[in-house]
């Protein structure tokens, strides 16, 4: 039932603003893909283009083998969930969910009893059984979002598109719905694309994440791929906190000043570079080679972790260091840091 979606070198301008510049992406049947990026990166435009709500200036979108432009909106069978739900407020929940089925041409329309049964099943699926007589105004935000999803699923979509589905909900509800959506996707197996600006959500939920910036896709890959092996400095910075060190590469070693800080490099380009290191990849060590001396200036709590801010000579910004052990250094203590993992990018 679900199809692959192929996006081929899409260009889209809004007057002078280039929203998308040459975007290509292959989405496998039944895959769950996240479009991740800051606001204005073009991710929502791309989603609306897949849905056919916007027209591309250049390039095309294929569903399976079919060019999407050859299909009417109805025949595309796209389930779209809007950020602000877009529920029909003068209709009950049941009527909202039944809307797609009742909109079918007479010959393909299921009879009333069948529609009622399907609406009941869908409300069961989104865990809102028995709410079909309510109006959207009588539901909470999370419930409305699930009604919107049930409404989108009712037309047996070939592709499910979600625009910031949890954007308007509070943090707790978001987390619950995230796990629930992952589970729902596993059971129903729709090809699904969702847009988010929350990297945690994208990494947790998606089979693959496409990171957009300034109208281009910077990288596509699994959560592990993009997090551990970011292709560009932007991806590295957008996916989580990171420390930046200007280094010089000589042979297989990176030098900070005249001190070697990271070895075993495979890149052979040499010269000036920027080394991106996440806080959890800095470890406090005893006297060892490849260590960076510094002074602890600040200690704070960051969720379950404790974090030290370490001043290093020759670096304007303090390094953020996640503390692995419960034994924290004291403020003012001189320590040595070793970089266990880092991403090297040629200096801009």
């Amino acid at each position: 039932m679900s199809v692959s979606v192929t996006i081929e070198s899409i260009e889209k301008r809004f007057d002078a603003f280039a929203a998308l510049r040459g975007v290509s992406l292959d989405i496998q049947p039944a895959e769950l893909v996240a479009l991740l990026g800051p606001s204005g990166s073009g991710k929502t435009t791309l989603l609306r283009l897949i849905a056919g709500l916007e027209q591309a200036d250049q390039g095309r979108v294929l569903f399976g083998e079919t060019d999407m432009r050859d299909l009417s909106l109805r025949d595309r069978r796209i389930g779209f969930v809007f950020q602000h739900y877009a529920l029909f407020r003068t209709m009950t929940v049941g009527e909202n969910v039944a809307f797609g089925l009742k909109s079918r041409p007479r010959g393909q329309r299921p009879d009333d009893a069948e529609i009622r049964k399907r609406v009941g099943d869908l409300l069961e699926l989104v865990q809102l059984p028995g709410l079909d007589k309510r109006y959207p105004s009588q539901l909470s935000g999370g419930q409305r979002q699930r009604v919107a999803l049930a409404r989108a699923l009712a037309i047996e979509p070939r592709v499910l598109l979600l625009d910031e589905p949890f954007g308007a909900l509070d943090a707790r509800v978001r987390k619950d719905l995230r796990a629930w959506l992952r589970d729902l996707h596993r059971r129903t197996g729709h090809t699904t694309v969702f847009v988010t600006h929350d990297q945690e959500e994208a990494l947790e939920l998606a089979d693959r994440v496409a990171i957009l910036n300034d109208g281009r896709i910077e990288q596509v890959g699994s959560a592990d791929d993009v997090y551990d092996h970011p292709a560009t400095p932007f991806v590295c910075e957008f996916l989580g906190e990171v420390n930046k060190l200007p280094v010089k590469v000589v042979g297989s070693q990176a030098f900070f000043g005249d001190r070697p800080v990271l070895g075993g490099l495979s890149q052979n380009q040499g010269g000036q570079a920027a080394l991106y290191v996440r806080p959890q990849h800095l470890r406090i060590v005893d006297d060892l080679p490849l260590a960076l001396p510094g002074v602890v200036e600040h200690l704070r709590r960051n969720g379950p972790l404790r974090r030290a801010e370490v001043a290093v000579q020759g670096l304007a910004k303090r390094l953020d260091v996640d503390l692995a052990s419960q034994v924290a250094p004291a403020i003012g203590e001189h320590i040595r840091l070793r970089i266990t993992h880092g991403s090297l990018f040629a200096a801009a």
Partner: protein
Amino acid sequence: MAAATSVWRQPSILPGFGIALGITLSALSLIVLVPLAALALKAASAGPADILAVATSPRTVAALRLSFLGALFAACVNAVFGMILAWVLVRYEFPGRRFIDAAVDLPFALPTAVAGIALTAIYAPNGWVGSLLAPYGIKVAYTPLGVMVALIFVGLPFVVRTVQPVLQEMQADVEEAAALLGAGRWRTIFTVILPPIYPALLTGFVLAFARAVGEYGSVIFIAGNVPMVSEIAPLLIVIRLEQFDYAGAAVVAMLMLLISFALILFVNLIQARARRRFGDV
């Protein structure tokens, strides 16, 4: 004290309920209720037989019928075209949009007599529009049709200005959702776009209707004022007054008042029901 007022008020942190209600009731009494009560008294002074005679006289009935049916027709036309006009103003960007938006309010600002004279000049058999219609045997000025043209003119802004903000607030994503769910254009309009607008449309309709029922200045120029044919009730009242038949004028006025009040109350009840059901999303 608190116990004595508890029937009237919900506990509220906002002060001034007493004084606000006092001012409201005084103003309402002085400006609306007392004059209307005086009107009812005047009408009652005529005596039951006279009241009945005035109320059932063919001329009164014809005038009332023209006023109310004409106003109803004009309000219906305004509901449809005002709705479309509001839609165009909200949804599309085109040169001259602001100009048209401003022009919508002109019937509010113009002295109605000026409007009446302008309409008469244009729709008279030798006027711009009237001369085009005359060959087809359509006469507008000095007929009931002319009355309706004037009533449509004065009522137009009401529908546009009540519907416009609701349309503006309505997100385009609801329409997109309907289209993606496979609904055709007409189904989208009638099941998705119009229902949320009905309350505002109804308000605009009632305002346009109420305005048209009471309209005097613009109509008397274009209507020709032939008794039994194109004479409106407000004019009949003025004629009675000029004949020093104050009781007769009061009876016609009372009838207008009762019919208008009943209609407006009815529409308000419909609206209150709609609001309870759908709330604000």
